[in-house]
Protein backbone atom coordinates (compact mmCIF):
# COMPACT_ATOMS: atom_id res chain seq x y z
CA UNK A 1 0.00 0.00 0.00
CA UNK A 2 1.34 3.38 -0.94
CA UNK A 3 0.37 5.97 1.67
CA UNK A 4 -1.62 8.90 0.32
CA UNK A 5 0.80 11.82 0.57
CA UNK A 6 -0.30 15.17 -0.84
CA UNK A 7 2.03 16.43 -3.62
CA UNK A 8 2.80 19.63 -1.70
CA UNK A 9 4.12 17.64 1.28
CA UNK A 10 6.13 15.43 -1.07
CA UNK A 11 7.68 18.53 -2.68
CA UNK A 12 8.60 20.07 0.68
CA UNK A 13 9.94 16.74 1.95
CA UNK A 14 12.09 16.29 -1.15
CA UNK A 15 13.39 19.85 -0.79
CA UNK A 16 14.35 19.23 2.86
CA UNK A 17 16.17 15.99 1.96
CA UNK A 18 18.00 17.63 -0.94
CA UNK A 19 19.08 20.53 1.29
CA UNK A 20 20.32 18.03 3.88
CA UNK A 21 22.38 16.37 1.16
CA UNK A 22 23.69 19.81 0.10
CA UNK A 23 24.77 20.49 3.62
CA UNK A 24 26.53 17.17 4.18
CA UNK A 25 28.31 17.42 0.82
CA UNK A 26 29.60 20.94 1.37
CA UNK A 27 30.46 20.69 5.06
CA UNK A 28 31.82 17.18 5.35
CA UNK A 29 32.89 16.54 1.73
CA UNK A 30 36.38 17.87 2.17
CA UNK A 31 36.94 16.22 5.52
CA UNK A 32 35.81 12.88 4.08
CA UNK A 33 37.54 12.92 0.71
CA UNK A 34 40.05 15.76 1.12
CA UNK A 35 43.07 13.63 0.33
CA UNK A 36 41.56 12.81 -3.07
CA UNK A 37 40.04 16.17 -4.09
CA UNK A 38 42.25 18.25 -6.32
CA UNK A 39 41.29 21.90 -5.83
CA UNK A 40 43.41 24.29 -7.84
CA UNK A 41 44.29 27.75 -6.59
CA UNK A 42 42.19 29.36 -9.30
CA UNK A 43 39.17 27.25 -8.31
CA UNK A 44 39.63 28.17 -4.66
CA UNK A 45 39.76 31.87 -5.53
CA UNK A 46 36.65 31.64 -7.71
CA UNK A 47 34.75 29.74 -5.00
CA UNK A 48 35.39 32.57 -2.56
CA UNK A 49 33.06 34.87 -4.51
CA UNK A 50 30.11 32.51 -4.93
CA UNK A 51 28.52 32.56 -1.44
CA UNK A 52 28.37 36.37 -1.16
CA UNK A 53 26.94 36.56 -4.69
CA UNK A 54 24.23 34.00 -3.89
CA UNK A 55 23.30 35.71 -0.63
CA UNK A 56 23.10 39.06 -2.45
CA UNK A 57 20.87 37.47 -5.08
CA UNK A 58 18.43 36.32 -2.40
CA UNK A 59 18.36 39.71 -0.65
CA UNK A 60 18.03 42.01 -3.67
CA UNK A 61 14.58 40.93 -5.02
CA UNK A 62 13.18 41.46 -1.56
CA UNK A 63 14.50 45.02 -1.31
CA UNK A 64 14.07 46.07 -4.94
CA UNK A 65 11.12 44.11 -6.32
CA UNK A 66 10.52 44.16 -10.06
CA UNK A 67 7.18 42.50 -10.78
CA UNK A 68 7.24 40.53 -14.02
CA UNK A 69 5.63 42.50 -16.83
CA UNK A 70 5.65 45.65 -14.68
CA UNK A 71 8.04 48.38 -13.62
CA UNK A 72 10.65 48.31 -10.85
CA UNK A 73 8.88 49.03 -7.56
CA UNK A 74 10.14 51.06 -4.61
CA UNK A 75 9.89 49.48 -1.19
CA UNK A 76 10.63 51.07 2.20
CA UNK A 77 12.54 47.85 2.99
CA UNK A 78 15.39 49.19 0.84
CA UNK A 79 15.78 52.26 3.08
CA UNK A 80 15.53 50.14 6.24
CA UNK A 81 18.16 47.75 4.85
CA UNK A 82 20.47 50.69 4.03
CA UNK A 83 20.20 51.86 7.65
CA UNK A 84 20.88 48.31 8.87
CA UNK A 85 23.93 48.11 6.57
CA UNK A 86 25.40 51.20 8.24
CA UNK A 87 24.79 49.61 11.64
CA UNK A 88 26.43 46.41 10.39
CA UNK A 89 29.55 48.28 9.25
CA UNK A 90 29.77 50.07 12.61
CA UNK A 91 29.00 47.22 15.00
CA UNK A 92 29.52 43.90 13.15
CA UNK A 93 26.73 42.57 15.34
CA UNK A 94 23.98 40.47 13.75
CA UNK A 95 21.63 41.20 16.63
CA UNK A 96 22.10 44.97 16.22
CA UNK A 97 21.46 44.66 12.46
CA UNK A 98 18.18 42.78 12.96
CA UNK A 99 16.93 45.08 15.72
CA UNK A 100 17.86 48.35 13.97
CA UNK A 101 16.53 47.16 10.60
CA UNK A 102 13.16 46.14 12.05
CA UNK A 103 12.85 49.39 14.02
CA UNK A 104 13.75 51.37 10.88
CA UNK A 105 11.10 49.54 8.83
CA UNK A 106 8.37 50.03 11.44
CA UNK A 107 9.36 53.70 11.85
CA UNK A 108 9.34 54.33 8.10
CA UNK A 109 5.97 52.59 7.66
CA UNK A 110 4.54 54.69 10.49
CA UNK A 111 5.87 57.88 8.88
CA UNK A 112 5.12 57.16 5.21
CA UNK A 113 3.02 54.00 5.18
Amino acid at each position, binding site marked *: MIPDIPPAALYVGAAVLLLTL*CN*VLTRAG*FLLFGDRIPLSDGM*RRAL*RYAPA*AALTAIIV*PDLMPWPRGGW*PAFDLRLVA*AAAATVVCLRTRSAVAVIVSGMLALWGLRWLFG
Partner: protein
Amino acid sequence: MAPDREPFDAADAAVRAERMAGLRSGLRAIAPAAVATFTWGLVTGVAMAKSGLGESAAVAMSLLVYAGSAQLTSLPLIATGAPLWLIFVAGLVVNLRFVIFGAALQPYFRDQSWPRRLAYGYFTTDMGFVLFMSRYGDASVRGTTEQRWYFIGGAAVSWLAWQASSILGVLLAAAVPADWSLDFAAVLALLAITVPLASSRPMLVSILAAGLAAWLGQALPLRLGLLAAVAAGVAAGMFAERFLRSKP
Protein backbone atom coordinates in the same frame (compact mmCIF):
# COMPACT_ATOMS: atom_id res chain seq x y z
CA MET B 1 42.42 -2.01 40.11
CA ALA B 2 45.52 -3.97 39.13
CA PRO B 3 48.75 -2.08 39.81
CA ASP B 4 50.24 -2.94 36.38
CA ARG B 5 47.60 -0.75 34.73
CA GLU B 6 48.82 2.36 36.44
CA PRO B 7 50.87 3.82 33.58
CA PHE B 8 47.88 3.45 31.26
CA ASP B 9 45.65 5.15 33.78
CA ALA B 10 48.13 7.99 34.01
CA ALA B 11 48.08 8.31 30.23
CA ASP B 12 44.28 8.17 30.26
CA ALA B 13 44.16 10.89 32.88
CA ALA B 14 46.45 13.07 30.78
CA VAL B 15 44.22 12.62 27.74
CA ARG B 16 41.15 13.36 29.82
CA ALA B 17 42.74 16.51 31.18
CA GLU B 18 43.65 17.63 27.66
CA ARG B 19 40.08 17.00 26.51
CA MET B 20 38.65 18.98 29.41
CA ALA B 21 41.05 21.86 28.81
CA GLY B 22 40.13 22.00 25.13
CA LEU B 23 36.42 21.65 25.84
CA ARG B 24 36.48 24.39 28.46
CA SER B 25 38.27 26.91 26.27
CA GLY B 26 35.98 26.02 23.36
CA LEU B 27 32.89 26.66 25.49
CA ARG B 28 34.32 29.94 26.76
CA ALA B 29 35.17 31.15 23.26
CA ILE B 30 31.79 30.37 21.71
CA ALA B 31 29.62 31.80 24.51
CA PRO B 32 29.36 35.39 23.16
CA ALA B 33 28.59 34.10 19.66
CA ALA B 34 25.79 31.90 21.03
CA VAL B 35 23.64 35.01 21.57
CA ALA B 36 23.88 35.86 17.87
CA THR B 37 23.24 32.21 16.95
CA PHE B 38 20.15 32.20 19.16
CA THR B 39 18.69 35.35 17.56
CA TRP B 40 19.46 34.10 14.07
CA GLY B 41 17.87 30.72 14.87
CA LEU B 42 14.75 32.41 16.26
CA VAL B 43 14.43 34.49 13.09
CA THR B 44 14.93 31.43 10.90
CA GLY B 45 12.33 29.47 12.87
CA VAL B 46 9.74 32.23 12.49
CA ALA B 47 10.60 32.64 8.81
CA MET B 48 10.21 28.90 8.14
CA ALA B 49 6.81 28.74 9.80
CA LYS B 50 5.64 32.01 8.16
CA SER B 51 6.64 30.82 4.70
CA GLY B 52 3.94 28.16 4.91
CA LEU B 53 6.15 25.10 5.40
CA GLY B 54 4.00 23.83 8.25
CA GLU B 55 5.28 23.19 11.75
CA SER B 56 6.47 19.60 11.32
CA ALA B 57 8.30 20.31 8.04
CA ALA B 58 9.88 23.40 9.60
CA VAL B 59 11.13 21.45 12.61
CA ALA B 60 12.38 18.64 10.35
CA MET B 61 14.19 21.19 8.21
CA SER B 62 15.87 22.70 11.25
CA LEU B 63 16.98 19.35 12.68
CA LEU B 64 18.12 17.79 9.39
CA VAL B 65 19.43 20.63 7.26
CA TYR B 66 21.08 22.67 10.05
CA ALA B 67 22.26 25.45 7.72
CA GLY B 68 20.67 28.83 8.36
CA SER B 69 21.62 30.62 5.17
CA ALA B 70 20.70 27.64 2.96
CA GLN B 71 17.37 27.31 4.78
CA LEU B 72 16.52 31.00 4.40
CA THR B 73 17.63 30.91 0.78
CA SER B 74 15.37 27.96 0.04
CA LEU B 75 12.22 29.47 1.62
CA PRO B 76 11.29 31.92 -1.17
CA LEU B 77 12.18 29.22 -3.72
CA ILE B 78 9.92 26.66 -2.03
CA ALA B 79 7.14 29.23 -1.57
CA THR B 80 7.11 29.98 -5.31
CA GLY B 81 7.34 26.30 -6.25
CA ALA B 82 10.77 26.55 -7.89
CA PRO B 83 12.07 23.27 -9.37
CA LEU B 84 13.83 20.97 -6.91
CA TRP B 85 17.11 21.03 -8.83
CA LEU B 86 17.28 24.82 -8.47
CA ILE B 87 16.68 24.55 -4.71
CA PHE B 88 19.51 21.98 -4.56
CA VAL B 89 21.90 24.15 -6.62
CA ALA B 90 21.05 27.29 -4.63
CA GLY B 91 21.70 25.42 -1.38
CA LEU B 92 25.04 24.16 -2.70
CA VAL B 93 26.14 27.62 -3.82
CA VAL B 94 25.20 29.34 -0.56
CA ASN B 95 27.03 26.59 1.33
CA LEU B 96 30.16 26.72 -0.83
CA ARG B 97 31.98 28.59 1.91
CA PHE B 98 31.97 25.36 3.91
CA VAL B 99 34.02 23.68 1.16
CA ILE B 100 36.69 26.30 1.80
CA PHE B 101 36.31 25.82 5.57
CA GLY B 102 36.59 22.05 5.10
CA ALA B 103 39.80 22.43 3.11
CA ALA B 104 41.28 24.50 5.93
CA LEU B 105 40.07 22.15 8.69
CA GLN B 106 41.11 18.93 6.97
CA PRO B 107 44.69 18.79 8.37
CA TYR B 108 43.29 18.86 11.91
CA PHE B 109 40.95 15.90 11.47
CA ARG B 110 42.54 13.76 8.76
CA ASP B 111 43.64 10.95 11.11
CA GLN B 112 40.12 10.43 12.48
CA SER B 113 37.77 7.63 11.36
CA TRP B 114 35.34 8.54 8.56
CA PRO B 115 32.20 8.63 10.74
CA ARG B 116 33.96 11.10 13.00
CA ARG B 117 35.14 13.20 10.05
CA LEU B 118 31.53 13.21 8.84
CA ALA B 119 30.39 14.45 12.25
CA TYR B 120 33.11 17.11 12.51
CA GLY B 121 32.07 18.35 9.08
CA TYR B 122 28.35 18.28 9.74
CA PHE B 123 28.73 20.29 12.95
CA THR B 124 31.03 22.93 11.46
CA THR B 125 29.55 26.42 11.79
CA ASP B 126 30.73 29.81 10.58
CA MET B 127 31.52 31.02 14.08
CA GLY B 128 33.01 27.70 15.13
CA PHE B 129 35.33 27.77 12.15
CA VAL B 130 36.38 31.40 12.62
CA LEU B 131 37.13 30.90 16.32
CA PHE B 132 38.98 27.62 15.68
CA MET B 133 41.20 29.08 12.97
CA SER B 134 41.95 32.27 14.89
CA ARG B 135 43.16 30.13 17.79
CA TYR B 136 44.85 27.20 16.04
CA GLY B 137 45.45 28.51 12.51
CA ASP B 138 49.17 28.91 13.17
CA ALA B 139 49.56 25.84 15.38
CA SER B 140 52.75 23.91 14.61
CA VAL B 141 51.13 20.56 15.48
CA ARG B 142 47.74 19.93 13.91
CA GLY B 143 45.23 17.34 15.03
CA THR B 144 45.81 17.32 18.81
CA THR B 145 43.18 16.14 21.30
CA GLU B 146 42.92 19.64 22.74
CA GLN B 147 42.17 21.11 19.30
CA ARG B 148 39.47 18.53 18.60
CA TRP B 149 37.74 19.10 21.93
CA TYR B 150 37.92 22.87 21.53
CA PHE B 151 36.07 22.34 18.27
CA ILE B 152 33.55 19.98 19.92
CA GLY B 153 32.81 22.51 22.67
CA GLY B 154 32.03 25.24 20.17
CA ALA B 155 30.04 22.91 17.92
CA ALA B 156 27.89 21.56 20.78
CA VAL B 157 26.92 25.03 22.04
CA SER B 158 26.18 26.26 18.52
CA TRP B 159 23.98 23.24 17.80
CA LEU B 160 22.00 23.55 21.03
CA ALA B 161 21.54 27.33 20.69
CA TRP B 162 20.46 26.94 17.07
CA GLN B 163 17.97 24.08 17.51
CA ALA B 164 16.42 25.47 20.69
CA SER B 165 15.89 28.94 19.20
CA SER B 166 14.83 27.66 15.80
CA ILE B 167 12.15 25.33 17.18
CA LEU B 168 11.03 28.07 19.59
CA GLY B 169 10.69 30.38 16.57
CA VAL B 170 8.54 27.83 14.72
CA LEU B 171 6.24 27.51 17.73
CA LEU B 172 6.04 31.27 18.38
CA ALA B 173 5.44 32.20 14.75
CA ALA B 174 1.68 31.71 14.94
CA ALA B 175 1.49 34.27 17.74
CA VAL B 176 3.27 36.95 15.66
CA PRO B 177 0.90 39.16 13.60
CA ALA B 178 1.66 39.30 9.88
CA ASP B 179 1.80 43.11 9.78
CA TRP B 180 4.94 43.06 11.92
CA SER B 181 6.70 41.87 8.74
CA LEU B 182 8.99 39.59 10.70
CA ASP B 183 9.98 37.94 7.42
CA PHE B 184 12.10 41.06 6.92
CA ALA B 185 14.14 39.95 9.93
CA ALA B 186 15.26 36.96 7.86
CA VAL B 187 16.47 39.30 5.11
CA LEU B 188 18.30 41.38 7.73
CA ALA B 189 19.92 38.22 9.11
CA LEU B 190 21.21 37.39 5.62
CA LEU B 191 22.38 41.00 5.27
CA ALA B 192 24.35 40.65 8.50
CA ILE B 193 26.39 37.79 7.07
CA THR B 194 26.74 39.30 3.59
CA VAL B 195 27.98 42.80 4.49
CA PRO B 196 31.11 41.65 6.39
CA LEU B 197 32.04 39.53 3.34
CA ALA B 198 32.63 42.76 1.36
CA SER B 199 36.04 43.05 3.01
CA SER B 200 38.11 43.67 -0.12
CA ARG B 201 37.62 45.67 -3.29
CA PRO B 202 37.25 42.64 -5.59
CA MET B 203 34.68 41.20 -3.18
CA LEU B 204 32.75 44.50 -3.19
CA VAL B 205 32.81 44.59 -6.99
CA SER B 206 31.60 40.98 -7.05
CA ILE B 207 28.70 41.73 -4.69
CA LEU B 208 27.65 44.82 -6.67
CA ALA B 209 27.70 42.85 -9.94
CA ALA B 210 25.69 40.04 -8.35
CA GLY B 211 23.19 42.57 -6.98
CA LEU B 212 22.73 44.19 -10.39
CA ALA B 213 22.28 40.82 -12.08
CA ALA B 214 19.81 39.73 -9.41
CA TRP B 215 17.80 42.93 -9.83
CA LEU B 216 17.62 42.60 -13.61
CA GLY B 217 17.26 38.82 -13.37
CA GLN B 218 13.87 39.04 -11.67
CA ALA B 219 12.40 38.92 -15.17
CA LEU B 220 13.77 35.38 -15.60
CA PRO B 221 11.45 32.45 -14.81
CA LEU B 222 11.98 29.96 -11.95
CA ARG B 223 14.13 32.46 -10.05
CA LEU B 224 16.97 31.65 -12.42
CA GLY B 225 18.20 35.18 -11.72
CA LEU B 226 19.93 33.57 -8.76
CA LEU B 227 22.24 31.56 -11.02
CA ALA B 228 22.83 34.55 -13.28
CA ALA B 229 23.79 36.61 -10.22
CA VAL B 230 26.25 33.98 -8.96
CA ALA B 231 27.88 33.75 -12.39
CA ALA B 232 28.08 37.54 -12.63
CA GLY B 233 29.47 37.81 -9.10
CA VAL B 234 32.21 35.21 -9.61
CA ALA B 235 33.20 36.64 -13.01
CA ALA B 236 33.28 40.22 -11.71
CA GLY B 237 35.28 39.18 -8.64
CA MET B 238 37.90 37.32 -10.68
CA PHE B 239 38.09 40.20 -13.13
CA ALA B 240 38.45 42.82 -10.38
CA GLU B 241 41.11 40.72 -8.68
CA ARG B 242 43.23 40.75 -11.82
CA PHE B 243 42.49 44.35 -12.73
CA LEU B 244 42.96 45.85 -9.25
CA ARG B 245 46.03 43.84 -8.33
CA SER B 246 48.49 46.55 -9.37
CA LYS B 247 46.87 48.97 -6.91
CA PRO B 248 46.88 48.02 -3.23
